[in-house]
C-alpha cells in the first residue's frame, strides 16, 4: 500500500502544480519552444501542426500502443483537436460539449454539457472542432452560435455571449483562436444563406471588440462584386481556425462558399470575400489584403483551410510566406506581408480550369457550371482537399496534405431564401461506378512539386501531423491510424481504431514520454511507444 500512497501524493502535487499554471499569450506565441504541450489548434500560430518531439521515431513507431481512451458518448463525428497544457488535456466533444482530462489516466477532471435547441440547422453534422485556452480559461463555440468562457479548473461558465442568431442559420463549429487578450471566433452556415463574418471578443469580460464582414455591405470595398441584394445571403462562412503572425499582428483566415452554392445566376459577380484567404489586422479587424481562390464559384469549394505560415528563402530572397492547398485542386504560395501571389500549382485531380493566370486567378473551362441535368466535375463537392489540417515539418521543409480524388455530378436548381432554412439551390451525387480514393501527399511548398504520395483506400477526412521523429501521422475513414516516413511516404505503423478518423493527430510529452493523441470513431485514443 505504501508505494501507491507515495505515487498518489506525487501525482496530486503534479496535478496541483499543473492546474495552477497559466497558458499565457507569450507561451502560445512561443509554442514551438514548448513542444511538450499543444497550446493552440494547429500546435502553433503558424498553422504547422508539427511536433518538435523526437522520442517516437522511425525505429520505434511500430511499437506504438494505446495507453488510454476517452469516449464521447455522442454519435456525431468527433472532429476536435485537443489542447494540452500542464498535465491536462482540454477538448470539445460533439455537439457542443467540453471536458478536461487528467493526462496520466484519461479520467475527466470536469465535463461541460451544453443543451442545443432542436431547431439548430447544420449542413454537415452536429460537430465541434475544439476549444482554445488562454490564461486560466477555456473557450468554446456552440452550435447555437454562442461563445462561452469556462473556468479551466472547474468547467464553470464565466461568461456566455451570443455571437449570432442561430435562427438565421448561423452556427459555430470552429475552434476559437486565442491571442493576446482576445478570442477570435468564426461562424458556420454557408448552406443557410448567412452573411459571414469573423469576430473578436475580449478574453477577460467577453466584450465584443470587432467584426469583419466576409461579405461587404453597401459602401464597402468589394460590395460591387454582388449583384443586387445577393450579398445579404452571400455566406462566406469562417468555420476553420486560421493562423496568426504575432510580429505582423496579422490574422490569416479562410472563407467559405458563396450562397446559394450551386446557382450562380442569382449572385452575378466575383462574390468577394467568399472562398478567399483574408489577412486582417488582429487588433482592429481591418482587412490588410485578400486573395480569392475561386471567383464566383458554383461547386461549394470553400477555402476553409488552415493557412501555413513559413519563413524561407523563395527564389533566393528571404520571405514571410503563407501556403494554402485549396479545395479547388490548386496549391498556392503568397507573400504574407503584401499578399503578392508567388506561385500556384495543381496538386489534385481537376477538370474545371485550364490553369491559373499570372496573378493566380483561375482560367475556367467552359461547361463546368452545374446544370439541371447534372455536370460532372473534378474535384467534387468535397474538394481535392477539405478542412482537414495540413502539416508543415520544420525538419523536412515539406508540407503534408490529405488529398481527395472524387468527382461529383453537380445539379443546379432554384432556391427561395427563408431565414434559417437550407439554401443551396441544387444538389450533387457521386459518379456511377467510380469508387473515389485519396492520398497523403508531400509537397515542397516553395515549388509546389510533389515529393511523394501515399495512397489511401478512400478520400480522407482526417488531417495530418508531422514530427521531428521523421514521421507523418494520419487516419482513414475505415479506422486506420497510421504513421508514414516523412521523407519517403513509406508506411511504418498502422492501428485499426474501429471508427473513422475525422480530425488530425497531436503530440505532447508527459512525465518525459512522448504521446500521440488521435480522435477516432467516438473516442480519443492516446498512444505510447513501448520500450
Amino acid at each position: 500500500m505504501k508505494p501507491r500512497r507515495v505515487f498518489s501524493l506525487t501525482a496530486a502535487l503534479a496535478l496541483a502544480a499543473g492546474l495552477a499554471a497559466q497558458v499565457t499569450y507569450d507561451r502560445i506565441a512561443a509554442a514551438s519552444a514548448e513542444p511538450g504541450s499543444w497550446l493552440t489548434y494547429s500546435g502553433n500560430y503558424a498553422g504547422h501542426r508539427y511536433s518538435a518531439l523526437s522520442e517516437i521515431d522511425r525505429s520505434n513507431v511500430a511499437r506504438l500502443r494505446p495507453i488510454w481512451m476517452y469516449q464521447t458518448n455522442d454519435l456525431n463525428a468527433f472532429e476536435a483537436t485537443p489542447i494540452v497544457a500542464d498535465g491536462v488535456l482540454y477538448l470539445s466533444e460533439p455537439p457542443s460539449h467540453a471536458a478536461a482530462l487528467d493526462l496520466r489516466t484519461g479520467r475527466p477532471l470536469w465535463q461541460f454539457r451544453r443543451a442545443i435547441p432542436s431547431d439548430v440547422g447544420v449542413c454537415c453534422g452536429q460537430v465541434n472542432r475544439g476549444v482554445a485556452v488562454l490564461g486560466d480559461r477555456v473557450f468554446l463555440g456552440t452550435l447555437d452560435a454562442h461563445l462561452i468562457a469556462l473556468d479551466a479548473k472547474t468547467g464553470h461558465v464565466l461568461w456566455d455571449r451570443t455571437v449570432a442568431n442561430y435562427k438565421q442559420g448561423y452556427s459555430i463549429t470552429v475552434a476559437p483562436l486565442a491571442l493576446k487578450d482576445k478570442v477570435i471566433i468564426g461562424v458556420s452556415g454557408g448552406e443557410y444563406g448567412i452573411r459571414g463574418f469573423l469576430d473578436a471578443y475580449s478574453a477577460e469580460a467577453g466584450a465584443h471588440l470587432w467584426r469583419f464582414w466576409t461579405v461587404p455591405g453597401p459602401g464597402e470595398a468589394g460590395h460591387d462584386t454582388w449583384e443586387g441584394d445577393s450579398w445579404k445571403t452571400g455566406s462566406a462562412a469562417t468555420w476553420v481556425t486560421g493562423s496568426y503572425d504575432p510580429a505582423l499582428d496579422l490574422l490569416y483566415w479562410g472563407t467559405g462558399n458563396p450562397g446559394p452554392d450551386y446557382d450562380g445566376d442569382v449572385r452575378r459577380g466575383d462574390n468577394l470575400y467568399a472562398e478567399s484567404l483574408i489577412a486582417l489586422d488582429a487588433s482592429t479587424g481591418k482587412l490588410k489584403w485578400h486573395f480569392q481562390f475561386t471567383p464566383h464559384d458554383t461547386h461549394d469549394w470553400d477555402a476553409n483551410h488552415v493557412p501555413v505560415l513559413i519563413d524561407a528563402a523563395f527564389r533566393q530572397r528571404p520571405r514571410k510566406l503563407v501556403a494554402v492547398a485549396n479545395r479547388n485542386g490548386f496549391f498556392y504560395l503568397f507573400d504574407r506581408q503584401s499578399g503578392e501571389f508567388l506561385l500556384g500549382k495543381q496538386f489534385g485531380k481537376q477538370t474545371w480550369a485550364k490553369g491559373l493566370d499570372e496573378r493566380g486567378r483561375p482560367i475556367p473551362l467552359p461547361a463546368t457550371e452545374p446544370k439541371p441535368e447534372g455536370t460532372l466535375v473534378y474535384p467534387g463537392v468535397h474538394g481535392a482537399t477539405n478542412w482537414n489540417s495540413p502539416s508543415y515539418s520544420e525538419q523536412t521543409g515539406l508540407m503534408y496534405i490529405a488529398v481527395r480524388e472524387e468527382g461529383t455530378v453537380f445539379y443546379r436548381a432554384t432556391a427561395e431564401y427563408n431565414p434559417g432554412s437550407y439554401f443551396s439551390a441544387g444538389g450533387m451525387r457521386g459518379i456511377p461506378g467510380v469508387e473515389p480514393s485519396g492520398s497523403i501527399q508531400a509537397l515542397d511548398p516553395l515549388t509546389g512539386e510533389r515529393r511523394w504520395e501515399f495512397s489511401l483506400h478512400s478520400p480522407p477526412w482526417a488531417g495530418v501531423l508531422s514530427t521531428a521523429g521523421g514521421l507523418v501521422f494520419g487516419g482513414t475513414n475505415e479506422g486506420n491510424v497510421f504513421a508514414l516516413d516523412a521523407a519517403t511516404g513509406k508506411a511504418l505503423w498502422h492501428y485499426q481504431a474501429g471508427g473513422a478518423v475525422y480530425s488530425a493527430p497531436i503530440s505532447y510529452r508527459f512525465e518525459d514520454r512522448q504521446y500521440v493523441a488521435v480522435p477516432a470513431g467516438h473516442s480519443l485514443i492516446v498512444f505510447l511507444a513501448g520500450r
Partner: protein
Amino acid sequence: MWGVARWLLLMPCLLCAAGTGESLFRIHCAPCHGQDGTGGRGANLAVAVLPHAPDDATLSRVITVGIPGTAMPGTRMTAEENRQLVLYVRSLYHLGTAIAEGDRANGERVFWSKGGCGQCHTVGARGGRVGPDLTDVGARRGPAYLRAALLDPESAIPETFTVYRRVIYMPDNFLQVRAVTRDGKTITGVRMDEDTFTIQIRDFSDHIYSFRKDELQDLHEDWGKSPMPGYRGRLSETELHDLISYLTSLRGTR
C-alpha cells in the same frame, strides 16, 4: 364562380408542388431507384410499405441521414423539399406492388436447379453466400430491373459510394477480386471489406481470407465485372418469366 376561381388559383401551386417532389426525385433518387421508383441499384420504392421507412417521419429521416451500412446516402435539402419528396415517394406505391405474373412454383424450381441461383444466393436459411441475399428481393427490386440483371448481370452491380457519404461502411457490392500471395497462391472471390492496409475476401468455396496488403504480390479488383453468369440463352423465355415471378414474390425478412 368562386369554386372555379379558387381552383384556378390553387392549381399552379399544386402543379408546382407535384413538380418539386418529382424533380427532386429525379435528381436525388432516380439514379439508383429508377425513374419510376420501381428499383434499380437501389430498392423498389413503389411498394405499400418500405421496410426501412414504414411511416412518413421515418422516411423523412431516412432521406436526411440515409441508411447506415447500405449504399443509401443522406441528402441535404430544405424541410419543405424533404416534405415534398416524402409525398412524392409515397405516391409511387400504386405503380408496382404486384408480384410479376408467371408460374412461381416453376420459377422456384429453376432457381434451385437449372438456374443454379441458389449456389451463390440465399433465400431464407437456404442457399449460398457468395452473392447477395435474395430473401426480400421482391420488396426491393421490380421485374424490369430483375430481367436486366438476369440477362446482363454487369448492369446490376451496386455502386458502393455516393458523394453524400462521409464514411465508407462495409461495402456490400460483392466486388470480385483476385489476390496473389507472395508464395504464388491465387485467391479469387468477393471482397467482404477493405481498408488502406488490409482486405478480407470470401472465395467461391465459402472460405474467408484476411490479408495485409503488404503480404500480397498482386491485388486485382474487377470493377464493373460480376461473377454471375448472364442467363440469355441459358433459360427459355418461359423459365425466365417464371423465375422473375418467383423473385418478385420474395418478401421475407432479412
